[in-house]
């Protein structure tokens, strides 16, 4: 397996370097072929490893690559660890990445900067692979920051747009806030365990569960504070409540990027981290409580915003944020396998929804506002059916007694059931928030479908379309299409949609038994809580059907509001203007942060500079001395001639004086 692992991880890096540095010298086709080829190779090599773990024929393996740092007792290497948990991530990352590479051939066809785009995509994949194969916390942090860099570069890919540059910085800096927690968590972990090796930490964590430590003057349970610090890192990367503000803005990046990085892979890194460290988190009850509460709160909060947004990508972005919340509270209640199953299925159906949205945007001349869509079902049927599969998957259509369902049915229902089965107040509260979020999920997903694919075409109102057909709505008159004919995307984009549709339909059905019930599959790579899984299967039927019921309610609500009686939304907004505005403006997080962080930082910087440095230190320091000197010896000015020889002479005299002084 050693060679395969090395190839899987380093082929994308090599491709990124060749395509990135070669850039225009090697040309579009070469750059695209090399990167896409490398990713297909990685994907093809990943599946046998994953299936090997499912079948029980593979065992965990570590490939040592190079020593990294050795400093006293703190030492860590570049090493690639592949166990069942990593294998899951390998197939997710490489499959979605390969698909996104292929999709981008079509989507980025007209972009002048294609080699750079593909190089970034492959670079991202490499960093993500380093993250999930990490054998120690520092290499995980390397991957963590590496994906952050790639995300920054890809969000800012169209860097000429000011909004793209701003979104890129925001993503990086907000993530850095999380990274502050991650770094302190690593330092603390090293202090306590004298190692950063993940297996060693996990082995020794239970023995530390009763110990206490001082952190910034507070006396705390060691494992709780360590896990909370690490989790702050996870919150940043996975856009959880409080550190989520960067994710919607990240939609400034090209849509394939949103699918790969901001839906299927990078944003799930936080969930992966908690699962990877699950034996450690299980020694920290308070930290797990925090994980559960934050996850549940995010899952509900983000879903509310999703119901009001008009930008098709932003709806899906908030949906992602919400689905990540599900994964976290599943982990928080101790069901790491369930969290991983939702991560796995979500990767397929969310990538599908994003790439589907990309196909719609492509058809609609870069218009992203759903108010200007309508009636696209007949125009781009293939995209429609793919999106329909994705919607059925995310809303979790499936029937427990028949034992069949779309991917989301298997994973989301398991999340809700296990939260209920855990039986603490917090977990039951999470269950109800999760059910509420499922209702909202169904509503906003169907809202998206109805606005986009049903009803009458409304796109003459769109400026993008107006530019395309050179008509104003007045000139178009009755014809609300304005003569614009959306066209189905090329095969390079439709083929990826087809593959992902397969995943969205079948991923749960096929793999749920292994993820949920097979302790041997995980083989100790996560904390597997057997009694909890039994309890999960034994929850009452009303719990098992709750997700289906709210899914149907959400569908009915969306149907009513956007098909049957389309005047309802306007009436709702008129009646509950305040509430709508609060949700539509994303609970005012951006405005709040701007007031309490961004503006004060610039204000403080100016004060420190003008009043501190110039007004105080310089005034009483060097300028004060200079003033005294000037006053007492005006003659001193005459030697400041600006000529070299005067200075040289003075310096020489000074040096001679100094040497003389020393020797005396």
């Amino acid at each position, binding site marked *: 397996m050693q060679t395969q692992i090395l190839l899987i991880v380093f082929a994308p890096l090599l491709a990124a370097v060749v395509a990135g540095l070669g850039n225009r010298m090697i040309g579009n086709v070469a750059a695209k072929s090399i990167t896409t080829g490398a990713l297909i190779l990685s994907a093809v090599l990943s599946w046998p490893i994953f299936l090997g773990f499912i079948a029980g024929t593979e065992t965990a393996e570590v490939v040592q690559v190079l020593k*990294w740092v050795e400093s006293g007792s703190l030492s860590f290497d570049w090493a690639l660890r592949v166990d069942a948990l990593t294998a899951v991530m390998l197939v997710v990352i490489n499959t979605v990445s390969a698909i996104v590479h292929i999709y981008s051939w079509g989507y980025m066809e007209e972009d002048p900067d294609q080699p750079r785009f593909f190089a970034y995509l492959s670079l991202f994949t490499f960093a993500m692979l380093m993250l999930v194969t990490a054998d120690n916390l520092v290499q995980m942090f390397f991957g963590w920051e590496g994906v952050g860099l790639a995300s920054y570069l890809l969000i800012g890919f169209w860097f000429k747009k000011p909004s793209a540059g701003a979104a890129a910085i925001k993503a990086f800096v907000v993530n850095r806030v999380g990274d502050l927690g991650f770094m302190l968590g690593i330092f603390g972990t090293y202090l306590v365990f004298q190692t950063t090796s993940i297996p060693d930490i996990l082995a020794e964590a239970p023995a530390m569960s*009763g110990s206490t430590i001082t952190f910034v003057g507070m006396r705390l349970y060691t494992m709780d504070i360590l896990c909370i610090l690490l989790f702050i890192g996870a919150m940043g990367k996975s856009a959880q409540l409080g550190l989520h503000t960067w994710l919607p803005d990240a939609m400034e990046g090209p849509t394939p990027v949103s699918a790969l990085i901001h839906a299927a892979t990078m944003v799930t890194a936080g969930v992966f981290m908690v699962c990877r460290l699950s034996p450690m988190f299980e020694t920290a009850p308070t930290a797990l409580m925090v994980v559960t509460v934050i996850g549940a709160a995010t899952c509900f909060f983000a879903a509310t915003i999703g119901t009001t947004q008009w930008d098709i990508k932003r709806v899906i972005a908030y949906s992602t944020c919400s689905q990540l919340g599900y994964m976290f509270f599943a982990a928080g209640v101790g069901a790491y396998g369930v969290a991983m199953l939702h991560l796995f299925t979500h990767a397929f159906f969310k990538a599908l929804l994003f790439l589907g949205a990309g196909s719609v945007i492509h058809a609609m001349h870069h218009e992203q506002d759903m108010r200007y869509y309508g009636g696209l079902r007949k125009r781009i049927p293939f995209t429609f059916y793919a999106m329909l599969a994705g919607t059925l998957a995310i809303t979790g259509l499936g029937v427990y007694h028949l034992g069949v369902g779309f991917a989301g049915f298997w994973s989301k229902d398991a999340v809700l059931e296990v939260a209920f089965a855990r039986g603490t107040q917090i977990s039951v509260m999470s269950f109800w928030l999760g059910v509420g979020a499922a209702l909202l999920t169904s509503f906003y997903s169907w809202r998206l479908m109805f606005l986009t694919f049903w009803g009458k075409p409304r796109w003459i109102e769109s400026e993008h379309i107006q530019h395309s057909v050179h008509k104003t709505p007045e000139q178009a008159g009755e014809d609300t299409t304005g003569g614009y004919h959306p066209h189905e995307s090329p095969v390079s984009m439709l083929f990826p949609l087809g593959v992902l549709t397969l995943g969205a339909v079948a991923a749960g059905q096929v793999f749920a038994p292994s993820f949920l019930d097979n302790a041997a599959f995980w083989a100790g790579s996560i*904390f597997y809580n057997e009694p909890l899984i039994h309890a999960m299967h034994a929850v009452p039927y009303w719990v098992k059907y709750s997700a289906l019921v709210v899914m149907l309610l959400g569908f009915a609500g969306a149907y009513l509001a956007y098909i049957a009686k389309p005047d309802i939304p306007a009436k709702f907004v008129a009646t509950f203007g305040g509430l709508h505005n609060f949700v539509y403006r994303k609970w005012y997080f951006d405005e709040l942060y701007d007031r309490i962080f961004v503006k004060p930082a610039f204000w403080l910087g100016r004060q420190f*500079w003008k009043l501190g440095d110039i007004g105080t230190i310089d005034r009483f*320091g060097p300028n004060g001395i200079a003033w005294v000197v000037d006053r007492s010896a005006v003659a001193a000015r005459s030697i400041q001639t600006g000529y070299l020889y005067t200075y040289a002479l003075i310096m020489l005299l000074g040096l001679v004086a100094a040497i003389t002084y020393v020797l005396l």
Partner: protein
Amino acid sequence: MEGFPILSLMMLVPLAGALVCLVAGAATARWIALGTTLVTFVLGVLLWSNFQTGGAQWQFTERAELFAGFSWALGIDGIALMLIMLSVFLMPICILASWDAIQKRVGEYMAAFLLMEVLMIGTFSAQDLFLFYIFFEAGLIPMYLIIGVWGGDNRIYASYKFFLYTLLGSVLMLIAMFWMVAEAGTSDIPTLMQYDFPPGAQTWLWLAFFASFAVKVPMWPFHTWLPDAHVQAPTAGSVILAGVLLKLGTYGFVRFSLPMFPEASAQFAWLVFALSMIAVVYTSLVALVQSDMKKLIAYSSVAHMAIVTVGLFAFNVQGLEGAMIVMLSHGLVSAALFLCVGVIYDRLHTREIARYGGLAINMPYYALFFLLFTMASIGLPGTSGFVGEFLALAGIYQASSLVALVATTGIILGAAYMLYLYRRVAFGGQVNEDAAAMRDISVREWAFLAPIAASVLWMGVYPESFLAPMRADIAVLDARLAAAAPASDSALTAGAPRAEAANALSHENGANHSSAEEGAH
């Protein structure tokens, strides 16, 4: 290499070059300076390759008694070796960076740089207290000239400020040195590093040295000379100032304050921490609001050097090694950032950030280099910046989680001001026509940016090459500091481990027991 005076030779070569440059014409002076610095660099590589890692602590020692107990004593340990390598590596780069930018008094300019190289090598290899002092202080002279003669419009004020600040501290240090020699009866630095000064005397000796080093680093609030000096200095002057001269202060802490006055260092650790914590937050925020590129990078240097001082006074191996790597890394990265500013300054003759924009369009390779150095500056793993910061902060966390928390906020603020700078320079549309017309980097510019880029990545991926030569010396220092080290504030106390996992569920109904809220806590 046994007995061969390679250190003296490394100083003699640039000295000879400097003398020739003084009398040579402009074109000749450039080539002579380049040739000389390259020869010195090759000698440096020989020095490194002949350095015995794990061998004697002091190697390549030379000693010639001069007069009055004052001797020409040279010798290096791994720490000095690394800093000498940094100096001789940056020197040819400085010459290349000045190739076209300097048009007046070229011979003198090149001579000043070569003289500076002599003095820097001397400072790092001096084994005699007074010899060190002379090199250390004399290093100011060429820098003063470079700023004062070849600097910008406000160069007189800048060099004046630079000189005032740095001179003030030196006087106190010199007095302390006299006292030390009288007390210990020798001016031999290795001997003094093992000498136990009485704790009472250590206190004021430490303060006297601190006065000199804190200005050089510079630590807050002695930093205000730095932005002015950088802004006025020509590009290569900034490179040497940020790359090597700032390290003289922290080298002073490593070589003198810590090993010679360990008790006083422990006693004053709080002072260093306090100033460093203020520096990280304060200067980072100031950097955020700068509209002059060089000022911004100058302020960021103060914040980065604060990580060095924090690491040095952590009193453990990680802190010390981290601080050393930050010194090397900052030497490369800040030098490279100033070079990046120089590249576009040479084209447009302004440092005003707003005059640029969209350079990624017409200067893609420039944008790539600038991006790499920006990322290294904000400590992206895989670059040199990360290894140093990570170790230094991991070191300080063991001493104080509060200091670690405040110092680590630098990673957020650093990302904010550097990416904000990068966005304004490289991203966005091409708003200024003249900036949009600039050509991408030339072969000469490739020649000085690419080696730094390679070194930054090397140090980030395999820092062992740089850590190994210093390991034994740091271990000696750490052992000497161990007795004085202040207690860690973490106060880890063992307790009875919990009986079961947090989410353990018994087979009965799990609602009433072992809940997360009411666990063993």
